[in-house]
């Protein structure tokens, strides 16, 4: 890695990437705390460790590109511009939540941000991503669809159907696989015949590549290039980002299937301090600025928690709304 950061992005964007990763980490850790306190219930899948993917990839997209994801998606919504207060309120089940408390952790959605939803059915987003891309192409829009999913999702039939369909109809879908090596407790080589997920597109004539998902700049550059390719050719492309989740699958998973040495090794590759080091090393930011970033993020998240706590519950009537138009 010898390319200088400044040759890739201007300082303020680099700082912005750092800010986003820190905000996401703070947000997720606050979620864990609120879960322990009982303010958040249900399944809670945290993203800590994977921030470079959400931040780097999203930064490489256009504002009106569609983004669609699975259930580990708080950071993906937040880096897209979702208000952390409303995301936290959603997790609390409050009326001020991004989905009025009706969606919950796994179902964030904001059409204004072109964030087309978190889905809790593994692989459920593939067909929908294909449809979003069809609509974009049908209307001759410039936008593409960035479809995020995990290593476990590639064995669903929908993955295959989606790849074939997107290539056949020449649809602008950028598949971003966050390979964190586990689907709950099952390691990728125990669920996939070919654990090199990017190689799975060979049967569909879809280009693909693997990228270091712990390096925000590597993700940014790969996605930038791929997104432009998809936009230009109106054809799918797949990026496999190698990453790791620092916590269990969800808050109820103690994660015993991973050796602590393995986890520790990956924590040394934490995308946040490593990026901080580069920012410092290349003189893009000084320590005071980085400290400030963390304080600001912490304050923003504290404010989000407060907002969620103080927000009202939905009215009982809300239960019957939105079933039909």
């Amino acid at each position, binding site marked *: 890695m010898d390319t200088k950061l400044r040759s890739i992005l201007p300082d303020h964007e680099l700082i912005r990437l750092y800010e986003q990763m820190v905000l996401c980490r703070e947000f997720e850790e606050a979620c864990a705390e609120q879960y322990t306190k009982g303010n958040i219930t249900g399944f809670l899948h945290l993203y800590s460790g994977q921030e470079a993917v959400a931040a780097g990839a999203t930064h490489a997209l256009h504002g009106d590109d569609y983004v669609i994801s699975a259930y580990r998606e708080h950071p993906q919504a937040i880096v897209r511009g979702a208000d952390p207060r409303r995301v936290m309120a959603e997790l609390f089940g409050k009326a001020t939540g991004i989905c009025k408390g009706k969606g919950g952790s796994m179902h964030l959605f904001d*059409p204004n941000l072109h964030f087309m939803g978190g889905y809790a059915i593994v692989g*459920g987003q*593939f067909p929908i991503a294909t449809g979003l891309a069809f609509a974009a192409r049908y209307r001759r829009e410039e936008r593409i669809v960035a479809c995020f999913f995990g290593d476990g999702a590639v064995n669903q039939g929908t993955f295959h159907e989606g790849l074939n369909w997107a290539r056949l109809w020449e649809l602008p879908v950028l598949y971003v696989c966050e390979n964190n090596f586990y689907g709950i407790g099952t390691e990728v080589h125990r669920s996939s015949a070919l654990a090199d997920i990017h190689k799975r597109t060979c049967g569909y004539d879809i280009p693909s590549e693997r990228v270091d998902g712990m390096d925000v700049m590597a993700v940014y550059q790969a996605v930038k290039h791929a997104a432009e390719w998809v936009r230009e050719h109106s054809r799918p492309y797949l990026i496999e980002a190698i990453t790791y989740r620092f916590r269990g699958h969800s808050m109820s998973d103690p994660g015993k299937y991973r050796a602590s040495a393995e986890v520790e090794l990956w924590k040394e590759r934490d995308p946040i301090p490593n990026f901080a080091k580069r920012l410092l090393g290349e003189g893009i930011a000084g320590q005071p600025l980085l400290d400030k970033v963390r304080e600001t993020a912490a304050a923003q998240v504290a404010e989000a928690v407060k907002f969620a706590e103080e927000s009202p519950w939905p009215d009982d009537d809300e239960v019957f709304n939105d079933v039909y138009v």
Partner: protein
Amino acid sequence: MPEMTYRDALNLALKEEMRRDPMVVTWGEDVALYEGSFKVTRGLLAEFGEKRVLDTPISENTIVGVAVGAAMAGLRPVAELMTVNFALLAMDQIINHMSKIRYMFAGQTHLPMVIRAPGGGGSQLGAQHSQSLETFFMHAPGIHVAVPATPADAKGLLKAAIRDENPVMFLEHELLYNSKGEVPEDPEFVIPFGKCDVKREGKDVTIVAYSRMTVLALQAASELEKEGISCEVVDLRTLSPLDADTFVVSAAKTGRAVVVEECWRTCGLGAEIASRIYENCFDKLLAPVERVSGLNVPMPYSRKLEKLCIPQVGTIVAAVKKVMNEKY
């Protein structure tokens, strides 16, 4: 009013709506070049071109899911499942996604989409190709379900389905495609969802039916008339929304009711209809509601056996006589 087949009425509805609104697009297995395996999409590719009329791979879950995504992005897709049996491959997109997306995202999006699916038994297609799955779709909130019985209803309801802002399962009956009837020419002829159609008035007994069962019920009513029994035939037209008022009022009036369903009897929609009648006419009913249903078996191939599994005019006649004879 011109006479036309149920098939042509559907075809006309598709064409009219596609002419009216460029956001209406359609896809499915063999709907374009082959013009549909039941030829409902005849002429669509020629008129609207391959941007709007598309053949798909054999990937039913994705056929539905692509419609979900496209609808979310503002199109008005009409996806065809070659037959409703294949909806079982798409239940994930239908029930887990299509029916819930508006709700779980708190109304921030909606899905103006239609899934067309022919179904029903009676053509000796065997167990995997002869199902009547309407109850599955009626059970799940968030979906509208249309079940036209006549060419006019087929046209008016399909147009309503395409204009509906909600996802619609539009269930056509394979044995009705060749049936004929008068169909209004007016391109604004749209039949609102959630209104039963009293297809025949009567005073002795109410027969509640839908799709092809309505056709059989009307035939049964004609036969019964000869024997002096006056049947009121209520055609549900849409299962969701369900217009219970109309059949409840009718049953309260006649005091006797028969529900005809092609699906399996156990937990079939007939039980729901019957329950609504009991709940609302408890003190007015003169006999228990009779359910005339598909037998609780997978469909056998042999024509001799198949006939036993599907309600026939004769079984409806017998059921009506049974409720007429019960005295309480």
